[in-house]
């Protein structure tokens, strides 16, 4: 398990690959991440001319394309003189490291992708997920810079399926009982709960075509968190957030009596602890309204 931050070199400059969600549906993830990073004294160098990572639509239709798209971004990072790149979206992260893994282990895929991109992959770029980023920066920095203690919060940390899986490729935390997000959340002063669904599937891209599946799966996740004493959920993936936040409206129709449950990005939670307000962090862009000072949900306000 990798959360021995003290033994790792503390890096404060990171390459940044936002990914498409960060510019649209998960704008608040991008906003909050940049602000939090700045407060913690680290800086981002955004990859110039970054493109789609090759996830979802590309990798279900054309493997060559998905591999080429991912490696294009990795290559750009190298050209920019970066040694690492942060991919805050779990799907981007997974797509990028999976491509790197395939290229490292299958010479034929490597040759093919190099040919498509008319380039040679020489530089080894370390792709970092959002949890690794905070562990590298150091969770003690969060505690040190804390403006308030989120002690009333009982957080269910939700990893989803892509952040820690497959273990052979991510080589990060335990794929089935991960604990690194809990460590980060606890550094904000909030409590975490032990629950069962932290690596279950939220339904992901079925959100578009089969909303019924997503509603069922996401409802189970929310109810399990609630039944284990959580009053808020932290996520680290734009897709998960869409399903768990936006789909609560559909949940209300499918499950009459469904009570709203706030779902925040991990970065927003950290931002709250660092003293920023809901508007600064983009929490007011969520479908389920949330205000820290009011731990009991205000059901009357639905955007």
């Amino acid at each position, binding site marked *: 398990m990798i959360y021995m931050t003290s033994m790792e070199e503390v890096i404060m400059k990171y390459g940044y690959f936002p990914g498409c969600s960060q510019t649209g549906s998960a704008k608040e993830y991008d906003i909050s991440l940049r602000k939090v990073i700045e407060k913690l004294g680290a800086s981002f160098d955004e990859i110039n001319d970054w493109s789609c990572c090759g996830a979802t639509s590309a990798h279900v239709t054309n493997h060559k394309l998905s591999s080429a798209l991912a490696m294009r971004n990795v290559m750009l990072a190298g050209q920019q003189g970066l040694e690492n790149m942060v991919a805050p979206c779990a799907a981007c992260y997974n797509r990028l490291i999976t491509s790197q893994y395939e290229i490292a282990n299958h010479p034929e895929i490597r040759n093919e992708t190099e040919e498509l991109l008319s380039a040679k992959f020489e530089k080894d770029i370390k792709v970092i997920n959002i949890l690794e980023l905070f562990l590298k920066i150091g969770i003690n920095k969060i505690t040190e810079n804390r403006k308030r203690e989120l002690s009333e919060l009982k957080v269910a940390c939700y990893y989803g399926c892509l952040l820690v899986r497959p*273990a*052979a490729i991510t080589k990060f935390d*335990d*794929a*089935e*009982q991960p604990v690194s997000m809990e460590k980060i959340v606890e550094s904000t002063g909030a409590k975490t709960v032990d629950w*069962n*669904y932290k690596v*279950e599937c939220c339904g992901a891209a079925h959100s578009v075509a089969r909303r019924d599946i997503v509603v069922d799966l996401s409802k189970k996740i929310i109810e*399990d968190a609630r*039944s284990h004493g959580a009053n808020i959920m932290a996520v680290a993936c734009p897709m998960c957030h869409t399903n768990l936040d936006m789909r609560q409206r559909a949940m209300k129709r499918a499950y009459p009596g469904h009570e709203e449950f706030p779902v925040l990005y991990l970065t927003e939670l950290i931002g709250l602890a660092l003293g920023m307000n809901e508007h600064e962090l983009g929490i007011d862009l969520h479908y389920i309204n949330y205000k820290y000072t009011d731990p009991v949900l205000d059901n009357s306000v639905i955007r």
Partner: protein
Amino acid sequence: MCSDPGQNMIRDAIRDKGLDAIVVGSCSPHMHERTFRNAAVSAGINPFLVEIANLREHCSWVHDDLEAATQKAIELVRMAIEKVKRDKPLTKISVPVTKRVLVIGGGIAGIQAALDTANAGYEVVLVEKEPSIGGHMSQLSETFPTLDCSQCILTPRMVEVHQHPKIKLMTYSEVVKIEGFIGNFKATIKKKARHINEDLCSGCGLCITKCPTKKKAYNSFEEDLAFRPAVYIPFPQAVPNIPVIDETICMYYKNGKCGMCVKVCDRGAIDFDQKDTMLVADIGAIIVATGFKLYNIDKKSPDSRYKGYGEYGYGKYRDVIDGLQFERIASASGPTSGEIKRPSDGKVPKKIVFIQCVGSRDDSKGISYCSKICCMYTAKHAMLYKHKVHDGEAYIFYMDIRAGGKMYEEFVRRAIEEDDVKYIRGRVSRIYEENGKYIVKGEDTIAGMPVEIDADLVVLATAMIPQDNSAALARTIGIPYDKYGFFNEAHPKLRPVESTTAGVFLAGACQSPRDIPESVAMASAAACKATILLSSDTLEREPVVAKVNEDLCAGCFYCKKVCPFGAIEVKDVKDLNGIVYKEVAYINQGVCQGCGTCTATCLSKSIELAGFNNEEIFAEIAAL
């Protein structure tokens, strides 16, 4: 040629033509070298003046082109002729044999091997690392396929070992060093301090009942389902019935106080100052029977080479247990006195899910092999449960049911048909707790449906893996082992209980997963092999061994590094005044197996292998 008439042809030719060496063009020397050598000996020729040109495996079987193959056959024979011209007659080496067997491991395999060897009239030293012999079999409740009580059939054997005049039983001891070679081993055994004088202790157990440090340590015999005090015997039937003091939790070792056991022991057997002692024994043959342990899928597991099963929550949920823990729960002498109760709250589980192949047959977790016994013991567990909890439900998730063995398949059918155990073919993907129930999510691959069972208790049939120290022990003894740490046999079919090291035999689950009948059969076979070895006063060895030319040897000792059998020693060469002027390599002819690795490694070309010296080999090549 290998038939009687063929051998007669050879004998006649030797006599009629006055031959002094022969070449046979035939199959591999592996098959019939001995046959032809014997034929030559009976006609008065030294057996090492017989060369075999392997025309079958090296030529006719592997080539299609008739003419080229014939040409090759002629060349192979020509090579053999050039070699036999230079062969020198060799005589077999004779070494004495120590008539004592060392048995390592006191489980059922070690017990059986010790008893058989001792009953054949040879002395046995039985070494067991735990305070009592009995091994895993002593932990079992009942045994398949007869459902007879494990303790009841094992205890008489344990007592027999203890009372046998030919067996020296050394419990709480470990083998730390093995030197020497077949028939002439020297074993160094560490006897760990029990802190109890074995000669004085009567086994009354008063020290145990009076020890104030109760519940300080998990009882490993009860698979951590119960506690034990600092002074303890592992289980009531332990042999020998002498307690051990656990220094790590004993109050006396913490603060020098207490000493309750000293006060109550009327024999004065408590000895806090006792130290580990070393014992050296001369040994003729070794039987290794160190057994297995269960793959610990707990996240805290030290088995870092295997990936755990976080998805099953083992180590997190107290009611997700392994097979040996269930044995203890089902055992009449166990922590629940044989009542099926779950560890968390002591409730009788109304629904149990058993999961087979946890660890085994799962490449992604690091173990590819089948643990062999789990299908049977899981059926047994479900049966025991149904016999004790009549209204309970038992589900078994399986991949295949492998019930090969006498009365085994019938046993599984009985579980299904008579005891109504529900078998579900498929794997479990996740277990989590909800309101005191364990939700088991899996797949029924026959129905093609996902299944979800809310169980009260989950039992995982975890893989059998070698003991923690198996690789280190293998290196101590000098026997090969596989990537998992199981010891390797010399031949998987024809020499199943011998290791490749002469004089070292294998028995039981230290070699691969095995059940009780197989372990016992192997143990008897190993004992038989050991007694064959010990039955003669001297041992004849093949003379194909390496020899060092001391004048040429530069003393670099590369040979010593590469020798897989530890046959090479450092020898001092002295001048006329007895002053050491150089060190050279010396090859112990009793240990050397004639593999030739040192010969090939030697930089100064000062090592020659009898029967394969440089002159002979070069002549063969030149004849090509």
